[in-house]
C-alpha cells in the first residue's frame, strides 16, 4: 500500500509590508544608544566613561585651536594685510584686473559645467539640514563654554574640563553662546515638530551654496578687518573697494552664467555643448596664462618670420607646412586599420625621416669634402647621425617592402620612436620643429586605429590640425616679450604660481604616466626596460633633489641650442616626477583587470590600441582613482618645495614676512598666524578636491557592491 507523502502548503506572501516605525528620538534614547551601549551594566558604564573622556579630548583639541585663534594678543593683521602679496606676489598693481579676469573665467566655466554635466550637488533633505543646524549649535555652545580665556577665574578645573566663571564672560562670548543656543533650538524644535515628514522635502545643495555666497558677499561689505598701526598695535578698518567690488561682481557673474547655462541647455544640443565646454576648458588654461596674465607684446613678424628667415621657418609657415603635409599623411594613414598599414608606416617614415634627415643635415655640412676626402675624424655629430638615420630609414623601407608576414605594429612603432628620438635629439632644428615632429609621430601611430569611416578620418585630421595650432600658438606667445612691469625675476608668484605649477605639472604628467604604465606592462622588452629604468630612477631620489637638478643641471642635458625659462624647467621637472608615480598607480590598475576583458575585446576584433584605449585603460583608471587622487593631492602640496630654488610660492612668502615687513609695520612674532592661515588655505583646497573625487567615484558607480 503506497501512502502519498504529505507536504504542507504555506502559500505565497500576500503583500509586502513596510518596516516597523523606528522608536521616537529623544535625549534618553540618544544617551542610551551613544553613551551607554553594551551588554552588561559594567560594559555600559565603561562605554559611557570612555565616550565621555574621548569626547572631552576631542573638544579640548578644538577648544585649544579656537582659544589660540581668538586670543586678543593675536596679530591677524599680518595675514589680512599681506593677502594680496600671498596670492599674486610680484604681479604689478596696475594690471590686477587681469587676475580678476582669470578668476572670473574660471567661475563662469565652473558654473556652466555644473549645468551641462548636471552635477548640481544633489539635494539635502530638510531632515539632514535640521540635524546639521542643531549639531552646529551644540558644538558652538560647548566650545564657547569651554573656551579658556586668559585671566578668568575658573569655575571648574579638572584635567580635561576647565570652565570659566560666568561672571568673567565677555559680552561677545555671551553673544556667541546665545547664537549657538539659537541654532540648537531652531534645529531641535524643527525636527521635533516636522518629524519624519522632514525626510520627504529637500532643498537643492546649490541653493545653499548660493545662500552661502550671498552671506559671504554681505560679510565682505560690512566686516572690518585688522590693519596694522605702528609697530605692535592694530586697529580695524573696512575691506578696500578694490577687493569688495571684484568679488561681488564675480559672484553675480557666476550666478548669471549658471542661469545662462540653463537657457543654453534648453536651446542647444547637450552633446555639442559638452564638446564646446571641453574645448573651452582646454583652451582657457593656456589663454589665461599666456595671454591674459602675461600680456605678451605681439608683432606680425613673429608670425610671418623676420626678414631674411624664410617663410618655412616662421610660425605661420610651420603651421601651414605641418598641417598640409602632415595632414595628408595622416589622412592617408587613417584609411583603415588593416595591418598592411604597419608596412606603409614603415616605408613612409623611413623615407621621410631617413632621407629627410640627410637632406636637412646636408645643408649645414661640406659634402664635397666628405665625398672627396672621406668622412673626417673630427666630423660633427650630425654627420654621423645623418648617415645612421639615413641607413636606418632605408632599412625600414626595405623591411616594409620585403617582409611578407604582417609585422606586429608594435615593433614598427618601436623603430619609428627610436628614429624620431634620434632625429629630434641630435639634429639641429628649431625647437618648434622638434616638438611638432614628436607630436606627428604619436598621431600617425594612433591614426590607423582611430580612423576608418569618413567621419573618423575627419576627426583625426581635425585633432592633428588643432594640436599643431595649439603648439605653434603657444610657442609664439611664449617667445614674445611680456609687457608687464614687475620687480622680481618673474611676474608669477604666490598662490597664482602654486596653482599654475600644480595644474600644468599634473596635466602634463598624466599622459606621460599612462604611456609609462603601458610601456612597463608591454610585451616588448625594450619598452619594459626603458619604462622601468625611468620609473626607478625618478623614484630613487627626493623631489627637492630633482628641483635642484632641474634648476641647475637640466640645461647641460638638453640638446644644443635649447634653453628653457626657469619656470618652464620647474614645470617639466614636476611633470616628470609625478609621471613616475602616476605610472605605478595605473600599472596597479592594469594588473587588476581580468584576462576575460582582453579576450572579449580581441574576440570582437578590436586592435591592441583600441582595446587599450577603450576597454583596459578606463577600467584601470577607475580601479585606482583613490590612489590617483592621493598622488594629485601630494603633488599639489609638493609645489611648495620650489621655495628651495628661490621661486616665491605662497608658503615662501608667508614665511618670509618675519622679519622684513615694510616699515613701520614690523611683524615680529606673526609667523604662527601666517602658517596657520597657510595650513587652513591648503586644507580647504585638498579637502574639497578629495570630496569632489569621492562624489565623482560615487557617480560612476565605484565602491558599490
Amino acid at each position, binding site marked *: 500500500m503506497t501512502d502519498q507523502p504529505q507536504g504542507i502548503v504555506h502559500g505565497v506572501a500576500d503583500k509586502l509590508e513596510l518596516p516597523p516605525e523606528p522608536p521616537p528620538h529623544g535625549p534618553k534614547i540618544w544617551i542610551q544608544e551613544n553613551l551607554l551601549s553594551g551588554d552588561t551594566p559594567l560594559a555600559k558604564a565603561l562605554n559611557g566613561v570612555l565616550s565621555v573622556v574621548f569626547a572631552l579630548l576631542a573638544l579640548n583639541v578644538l577648544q585649544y585651536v579656537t582659544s589660540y585663534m581668538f586670543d586678543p594678543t593675536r596679530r591677524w593683521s599680518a595675514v589680512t594685510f599681506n593677502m594680496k602679496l600671498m596670492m599674486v606676489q610680484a604681479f604689478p598693481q596696475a594690471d590686477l584686473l587681469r587676475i580678476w579676469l582669470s578668476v572670473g573665467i574660471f567661475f563662469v566655466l565652473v558654473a556652466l559645467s555644473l549645468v551641462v554635466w548636471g552635477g548640481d550637488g544633489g539635494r539635502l533633505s530638510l531632515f539632514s539640514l535640521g540635524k546639521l543646524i542643531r549639531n552646529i549649535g551644540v558644538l558652538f555652545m560647548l566650545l564657547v563654554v569651554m573656551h579658556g580665556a586668559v585671566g578668568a577665574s575658573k569655575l571648574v578645573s579638572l584635567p580635561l574640563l576647565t570652565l570659566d566663571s560666568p561672571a568673567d564672560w565677555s559680552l561677545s562670548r555671551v553673544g556667541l553662546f546665545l547664537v549657538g543656543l539659537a541654532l540648537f533650538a531652531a534645529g531641535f524644535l524643527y525636527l521635533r515638530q516636522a518629524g519624519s515628514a522632514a525626510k520627504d522635502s529637500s532643498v537643492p545643495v546649490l541653493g545653499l551654496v548660493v545662500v552661502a555666497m550671498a552671506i559671504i558677499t554681505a560679510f565682505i561689505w560690512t566686516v572690518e578687518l585688522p590693519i596694522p598701526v605702528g609697530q605692535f598695535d592694530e586697529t580695524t578698518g573696512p575691506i578696500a573697494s578694490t577687493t569688495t567690488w571684484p568679488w561681488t561682481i564675480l559672484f553675480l557673474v557666476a550666478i548669471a552664467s549658471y542661469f545662462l547655462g540653463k537657457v543654453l541647455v534648453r536651446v542647444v544640443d547637450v552633446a555639442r555643448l559638452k564638446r564646446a565646454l571641453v574645448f573651452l576648458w582646454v583652451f582657457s588654461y593656456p589663454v589665461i596664462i599666456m595671454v591674459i596674465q602675461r600680456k605678451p607684446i605681439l608683432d606680425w613678424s613673429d608670425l610671418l618670420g623676420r626678414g631674411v628667415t624664410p617663410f618655412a621657418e616662421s610660425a605661420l609657415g610651420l603651421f601651414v607646412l605641418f598641417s598640409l603635409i602632415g595632414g595628408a599623411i595622416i589622412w592617408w594613414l587613417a584609411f*583603415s*586599420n*588593416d*595591418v*598592411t598599414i604597419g608596412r606603409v608606416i614603415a616605408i613612409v617614415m623611413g623615407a621621410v625621416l631617413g632621407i629627410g634627415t640627410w637632406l636637412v643635415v646636408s645643408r649645414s655640412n661640406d659634402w664635397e669634402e666628405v665625398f672627396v676626402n672621406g668622412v673626417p675624424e673630427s666630423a660633427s655629430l650630425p654627420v654621423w647621425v645623418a648617415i645612421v638615420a639615413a641607413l636606418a630609414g632605408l632599412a625600414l623601407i626595405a623591411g616594409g617592402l620585403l617582409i611578407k*608576414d*604582417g609585422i*606586429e605594429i608594435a615593433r614598427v612603432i618601436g623603430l619609428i620612436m627610436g628614429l624620431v628620438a634620434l632625429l629630434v635629439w641630435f639634429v639641429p632644428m628649431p625647437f618648434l620643429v622638434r616638438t611638432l615632429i614628436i607630436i606627428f609621430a604619436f598621431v600617425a601611430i594612433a591614426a590607423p586605429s582611430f580612423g*576608418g*569611416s569618413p*567621419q*573618423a578620418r575627419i576627426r583625426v585630421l581635425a585633432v592633428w590640425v588643432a594640436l599643431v595650432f595649439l603648439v605653434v600658438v603657444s610657442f609664439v606667445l611664449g617667445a614674445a616679450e611680456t609687457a608687464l612691469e614687475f620687480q622680481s625675476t618673474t611676474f608669477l608668484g604666490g598662490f597664482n604660481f602654486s596653482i599654475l605649477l600644480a595644474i600644468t605639472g599634473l596635466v602634463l604628467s598624466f599622459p606621460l604616466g599612462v604611456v609609462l604604465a603601458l610601456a612597463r606592462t608591454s610585451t616588448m622588452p625594450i619598452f619594459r626596460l626603458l619604462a622601468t629604468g625611468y620609473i626607478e630612477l625618478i623614484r630613487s631620489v627626493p623631489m627637492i633633489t630633482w628641483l635642484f637638478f632641474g634648476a641647475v643641471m637640466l640645461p647641460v642635458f638638453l640638446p644644443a641650442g635649447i634653453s628653457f625659462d626657469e619656470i618652464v624647467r620647474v614645470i617639466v621637472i614636476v611633470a616628470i616626477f609625478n609621471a613616475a608615480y602616476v605610472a605605478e598607480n595605473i600599472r596597479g590598475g592594469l594588473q587588476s583587470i581580468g584576462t*576575460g*576583458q582582453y*579576450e*572579449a575585446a*580581441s*574576440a*570582437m*576584433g*578590436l*586592435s591592441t590600441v*583600441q582595446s587599450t584605449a*577603450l*576597454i583596459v585603460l*578606463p*577600467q584601470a583608471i*577607475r580601479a585606482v582613482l583613490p590612489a590617483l587622487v592621493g598622488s594629485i593631492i601630494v603633488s599639489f602640496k609638493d609645489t611648495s618645495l620650489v621655495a628651495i630654488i628661490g621661486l616665491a610660492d605662497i608658503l615662501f612668502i608667508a614665511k618670509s614676512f618675519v622679519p622684513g615687513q615694510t616699515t613701520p609695520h614690523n611683524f615680529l612674532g606673526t609667523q604662527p598666524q601666517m602658517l596657520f592661515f597657510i595650513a587652513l588655505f591648503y586644507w580647504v583646497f585638498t579637502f574639497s578636491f578629495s570630496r569632489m573625487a569621492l562624489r565623482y567615484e560615487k557617480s*560612476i*558607480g565605484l565602491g558599490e557592491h
Partner: protein
Amino acid sequence: MTDRKPMIVAEGVKKWFGDFQALSGVTTTVGERDVVVVIGPSGSGKSTFIRCINRLEVHQEGRIAVDGIELTNDLRNIDAIRREVGMVFQSFNLFPHLTVLENITLAPIWVRKLTRTESEENGMQLLERVGIPEQADKFPGQLSGGQQQRVAIARALAMNPKVMLFDEPTSALDPEMIKEVLDVMKELAQSGMTMIVVTHEMGFAREVADRVLFFDYGTIVEEGTPEHFFTNPQHDRTKLFLSQIL
C-alpha cells in the same frame, strides 16, 4: 550536413600547454547553418578547441580554416577571421564601465566603422531580439546573470558574424536564467546561424543540435546526431560520461 558549404575546417589540430597535450589531433568540419554541440568532461580540450578557432589560443600543429580563410600567424587573416566569428564566454565578460547599448555598439563603431546612429539602431534591434530592450541604458552590474549573458550574445551578434562560438554559456547561471539564454540560442539556431556550443545542457542538444561531438583527452571520441548519442552510444567512455549526466 555534408552538402553544406564547409564553414569551419579543422584537420589534425594539436596543442600543448608546456608538456601537457590539450588537443591531440582534432579533425572535423562544421558546415554552414550547422549547430554543433560539444560535450565532454572538464579538461578534455573542448574549450581549448573552440578558443583555437578565433585565435584566443594558438594551435601548434594541424590546420584550421574559417570560411576559407586559413588561420595562420598573419594578423590580417586573424583579424578577418575574428570579424566573422562571434564568441560568448562563460563569465559573460561584458565591459562594466559602459552601458548595455554601448557594449553592443562598441565593436561595430570601431571595427566595422559604422556610424553611431546605425550601430545604435542595430543594437536596439538586437536587444529586442534577445528580449531585453528596456535595459539599454543600464550598466552590466545592474542586470541579472541571464540578462548579462543575453547582452553578451547581442554584443557578439552586433558584428554580423557568420559563426557563433559558445563557451559554456549557461554554466554560471541558475536554472530559471538558463532557460532564458537557451531560448535565445534556440531562436538563433533556427534562424540559420552556424553555431558551435560547448555545454552540458543535453536538452538543448536534443532539441536543436545537428551534430554532437564528444571530447575526451584532447580528441573527438565519438560524434553523431543527438539521437545516436542518447539512444545508442558506442564507445565505453561515451557511455560512462552519458550515464553520469543523463
